[in-house]
């Protein structure tokens, strides 16, 4: 990997981390575990369309692991990883069938997959299907949040071209 490219990926990861840490400061209003805006995914969605699969995975997992360390909540790491893996695999496949003008759709479906991944991990850890009751609430908020982050990523796409750097 070229040094320039590495620096660029480091920059994207840092931006994602900053957004993540800032979002930690926003109190969770809903009593539903795992419900959040996930603004750091603006970077993930952007990377899906501008970086290789390997690079996107690097950015995402570095952010998730460091984010859990900074947030001091290692218990949340497992859920973030479960959701993150589902979301990443899904969006990398969707990238092949959804063009750049419809990044927001890819983002919404990525959020849906993220929620499903979270619930699968929660059900496995807790040994109960009771957590599935939370899924529809996570899905509704996830779709809205995914739309928001997707539109942000789309806005960036039309303005920033990584090849310019």
């Amino acid at each position: 990997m070229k040094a320039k490219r590495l620096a660029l990926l480091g920059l994207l990861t840092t931006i994602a981390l900053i957004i993540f840490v800032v979002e930690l400061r926003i109190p969770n209003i809903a009593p539903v575990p795992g419900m959040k805006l996930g603004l750091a995914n603006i970077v993930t969605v952007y990377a899906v369309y501008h970086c290789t699969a390997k690079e996107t995975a690097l950015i995402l997992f570095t952010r998730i692991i460091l984010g859990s360390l900074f947030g001091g909540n290692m218990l949340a790491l497992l859920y973030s990883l479960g959701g993150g893996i589902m979301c990443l695999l899904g969006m990398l496949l969707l990238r092949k069938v959804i063009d750049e003008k419809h990044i927001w759709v890819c983002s919404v479906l990525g959020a849906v997959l993220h929620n499903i991944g979270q619930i699968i991990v929660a059900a496995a850890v807790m040994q109960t299907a009771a957590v599935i009751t939370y899924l529809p609430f996570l899905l509704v908020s996830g779709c809205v949040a995914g739309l928001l982050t997707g539109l942000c990523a789309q806005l960036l796409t039309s303005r920033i071209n990584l090849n310019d750097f």
Partner: protein
Amino acid sequence: MKNAKLWIIVAAVIFIAAIVWCVIIITKPPGEIVTISQDGETLYTLDLSEESDRTITVEYEGRENVIEIKDGRIHMLEADCPDHTCINTGWLEDLPIVCLPNKLVIEFADESGADAVAR
């Protein structure tokens, strides 16, 4: 072949289905039989209509959860977990009370099962 329209429809269907699913959960009448389980094992099965006011303490790896039953309702009173989501959920209504770190779940038992017990 790129066909964004198809995926927009898929996303819309998921969104609408999720809203309908939420409404079904919210409008479902609450039961009376409550189960408290930890790590997949049922610790308590309680009939809220017959329970007197009391607290139940459940321990997990040195951390404690205090569950309170009051006036035929149940909630998490205290918890040694970092997020306190379980306490913030409030009284048990539509959604099960879940304490992820301590693997504790308070939920209404399956309606059909509850009826079977009552008869």
